[in-house]
């Protein structure tokens, strides 16, 4: 029978998870060159809400964490293709060769346009995961594993302070809720987002083109601004679906969110930490020991914790340990 048993209710665990979740904020940016166009993003986000369910099979479900985007800036840069007049060939009778005419281009080079709308107000997602308790013993005397820091990813993307705990100076039992399966909502942009992006791109292209008959001619050559944009971006259907694919697949932000949750909960931020030895009574200066009333410093009372284990049932999380020598 264990020397020490502590039972935590589902509500207590929910509060603990909520405290951890509330401190998480991240920032990430990146860009990709797709040839005819380039796309980039700069996002900042945090988590809100969420609930915790304990399972009779020992599982813990953290569900419906809201991904809130404080910034969701998309940058699209287009190389507008050459717009030229003239060209083509004339057939002439033998022995004269066919004559091909030069093309005269409207711009001195390939114009670039770029837009960077912030779509934060239009993006919403949820993350849920099911995990199991993982107990890890941190040995403060052991050298760190060479070459690999499992929390370097989080150190790069987490913003703010206090989320990643500092390396403990004493040995420590650490209790993680290790995600086994993570469910992240796909990026699914609404129609209005497609309209915003399309309008911004159209305005940027049209700003290049003079008005009146010149615009009529150029639009006739390129087949319309919308068609031009569609051609350059290689959009098969709707721009909002194209944007969703961009973030889900090309930028890999789904993987990013999954990795963030997996490493945060599973490896880097324990939901509970218990020092070994565990301090039962802290050091104390007292004047009530000696008859003279002289101050005496009492050393802290610490007990070594051995064989810590954690079990979960559908109503509580139970921590058991021995107090060892």
């Amino acid at each position: 029978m264990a020397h020490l048993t502590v039972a935590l209710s589902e509500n207590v665990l929910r509060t603990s998870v909520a405290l951890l979740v509330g401190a998480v904020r991240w920032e990430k940016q990146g860009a990709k060159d797709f040839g005819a166009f380039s796309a980039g993003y700069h996002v900042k986000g945090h988590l809100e809400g969420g609930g915790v369910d304990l399972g009779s099979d020992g599982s813990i479900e953290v569900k419906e964490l809201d991904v809130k985007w404080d910034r969701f800036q998309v940058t699209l840069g287009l190389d507008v293709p050459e717009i030229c007049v003239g060209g083509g060939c004339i057939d002439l009778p033998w022995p004269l060769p066919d004559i091909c005419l030069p093309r005269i281009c409207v711009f001195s080079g390939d114009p670039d346009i770029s837009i960077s709308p912030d779509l934060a107000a239009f993006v919403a997602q949820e993350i849920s995961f099911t995990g199991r308790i993982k107990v890890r013993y941190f040995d403060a005397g052991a050298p760190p594993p060479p070459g690999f820091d499992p929390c370097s990813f989080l150190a790069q993307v987490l913003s703010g302070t206090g989320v990643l705990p500092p390396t403990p100076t004493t040995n420590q039992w650490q209790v993680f809720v290790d995600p086994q399966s993570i469910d992240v909502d796909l990026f699914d942009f609404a129609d209005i987002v497609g309209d915003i992006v399309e309008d911004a791109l159209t305005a940027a292209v049209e700003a290049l083109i003079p008005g009146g008959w010149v615009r009529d001619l150029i639009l006739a050559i390129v087949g319309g601004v919308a068609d031009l944009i569609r051609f350059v971006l290689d959009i098969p259907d709707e721009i909002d679906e194209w944007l969703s694919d961009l973030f889900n697949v090309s930028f890999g932000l789904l993987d990013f969110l999954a990795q963030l949750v997996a490493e945060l909960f599973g490896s880097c931020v324990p939901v509970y930490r218990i020092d070994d030895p565990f301090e039962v009574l802290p050091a104390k200066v007292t004047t009530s020991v000696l008859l003279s009333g002289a101050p005496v410093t009492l050393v802290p009372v610490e007990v070594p914790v051995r064989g810590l284990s954690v079990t979960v049932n559908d109503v509580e999380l139970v921590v058991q340990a021995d107090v060892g020598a």
Partner: protein
Amino acid sequence: MTRDDRQVTLNRAVFTQTAFESRALTVLTTLFHRFPRPGRYRVHVQHESRPVRDLTVVVDERSTRLQANLDLANLHEEKGCCCDAEGDVELAVNGVVGLYPSTGVGGYGVTVTRLTEGEGRADGGHEVVLDNRKGVPAGDLFAVVLTRPGSYVLAARNARSEVRVTLPRGERVRTDEPSLVVLTSDGFAPRSLELLAGRALVIACDVDADLRIELVRAEEGEGRGAGPRRRTFRAARPREG
């Protein structure tokens, strides 16, 4: 993200030019000179304000190159020059050199002189086969791309032709479909024609001529650019569930 901020300027001459003539090659005009005889030719390019460059065209029966287009505005740049480092252009017999400026203002004059065997200078004794300031010789072609919608008059010698340029209505225009007009001693054939803006009009000269084409009545476009835009991204079908 980081991207080069390339400065792009509008080639204004493409839209502001309304009168064209073979004696001064400007943006949107091209003069095609044929080289029916083998030999060495000196091409002297002169801008209104400055000499530009001298090139040598070598017409050789062994050459297979039938056409070279020389951008007079970029003769000193690699991208605009079709010649080798010495400024030589190789051409087959009956080959054609197209001379055109792609950008800039002002007209260019081009003189092509056939060099006599063994001599290197294009002075007195050589035969001038083209001087566009004096006219387009028979057998050559003059092309002009008309961008501004309206009615133009094409004139040469005592001949006149009417050309109407229109904007395409509701369709995408392909500009690489030029129209051909032949100038003979009887005048232009056809005597009038209509073409879409942005396409080239090519005049084949069967007789020596000094060609001029000028806008006489402009037509404004429909100003579609200022009106409501047509949306094409929205698919007609409902999104699947």
